[in-house]
């Protein structure tokens, strides 16, 4: 299984259309390997991006330097997926 250790999902809340465009520009930066879970829509509509660990700093710096508000929606994706796996295993064991 691919490991998502250290990957975060950022929730971005652009305040205006200019910030929406700035986030949209990130979509074209393929080297960052971003996965847009929710793509840019409009001002004040959430955008969720899964960010690989090596790109985290660059993305956060980009957002902060453009004063684009964001929060960390998922702090470590792999932790969440590990919990998912354990809950599947535990439920199966109980079923058996």
């Amino acid at each position: 299984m691919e490991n998502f250790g250290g990957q975060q999902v950022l929730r971005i809340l652009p305040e205006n259309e200019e910030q929406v465009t700035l986030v949209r520009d990130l979509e074209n930066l393929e080297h960052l390997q971003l996965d847009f879970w929710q793509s840019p829509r409009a001002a004040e509509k959430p955008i969720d991006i899964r960010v690989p660990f090596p790109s985290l700093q660059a993305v956060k710096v980009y957002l902060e330097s453009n004063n684009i508000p964001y929060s960390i929606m998922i702090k470590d994706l792999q932790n969440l997926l590990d919990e998912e796996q354990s809950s599947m295993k535990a439920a199966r064991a109980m079923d058996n």
Partner: protein
Amino acid sequence: ARSTNSFNYAIYHTFDEINSFIDTLVAENPNLVSKIVIGKSTEGRPLNVLKFSTGSNRPAFWIDTGIHSREWVTQASGVWFAKKIVQDYGTDPSLTATLNKLDIYLEIVTNPDGYVFSHTSNRMWRKTRSANPGSTCVGTDPNRNWDAGFGGPGSSSNPCTETYRGRAAHSEPEVKAIVDFVKGHGNIKGFVSIHSYSQMLLFPYGYTSALTPDHQELNNLARVAVNALTSLYGTVYEYGSIITTIYQASGGTVDWTYNQGIKYSYTFELRDTGRYGFALPASQIIPTAQETWLALTKLIEYTRDNPY
């Protein structure tokens, strides 16, 4: 599970477990449920559709879940819907009336290769698993592969992106199978394609800002459905046309179905906004399915009561 009564609806299941559930459900309810294999995926897996029917030559309502493989709560909800239908038939007056007039088709794992891949190799896999000649990147976004504004804005020509549209409309066997089935059936009156996780109920169009001739009716019905959904747990939904509510998206499923004459074409985005995304904990499967079923019921009843 030996029966669908002992099946655990509150956990995520593998493709094989879901198929086993389907076969058990059919065996338990031979006069109500049958399984149709509408095609095979790229990797040769069956594209199984459950048919709930009490008569012949009926108009029909279609529901699919799991076209984006990583949206696990949708396949899990599909399993719950299947059991709910057999449980309610004969006891719930509305569903009984529905099945005495309409057939319901349910495709639980619309993208089986992607679903298996999300269980075995990459939990975040969204696309199909078809090869792309000339590229090392695999898969096509099956929700950009339909012949509805195919190739337009809001889809990508780059096989390495998540919204890669594919080499041609209906190039994905998972999509082509539904296209052939819908055309062959010829009497599907409602069509719902279920995604997660941004809490929306959407209707055509996505590829153009033009309003459909039925915009007002679709919007009114969406409001009724969303109100029903929210009544259970207070989950807040947005609704509207795809292009105005999210963004322009070309080659989408329900744009194609609407253009085929299926007026009541909708797409859901199930919960959960702002917490877990595609990794929605299994504890939320049943509440998600329950609230979605209330909205689905409104869409099905309206389709039943407003023939066209």
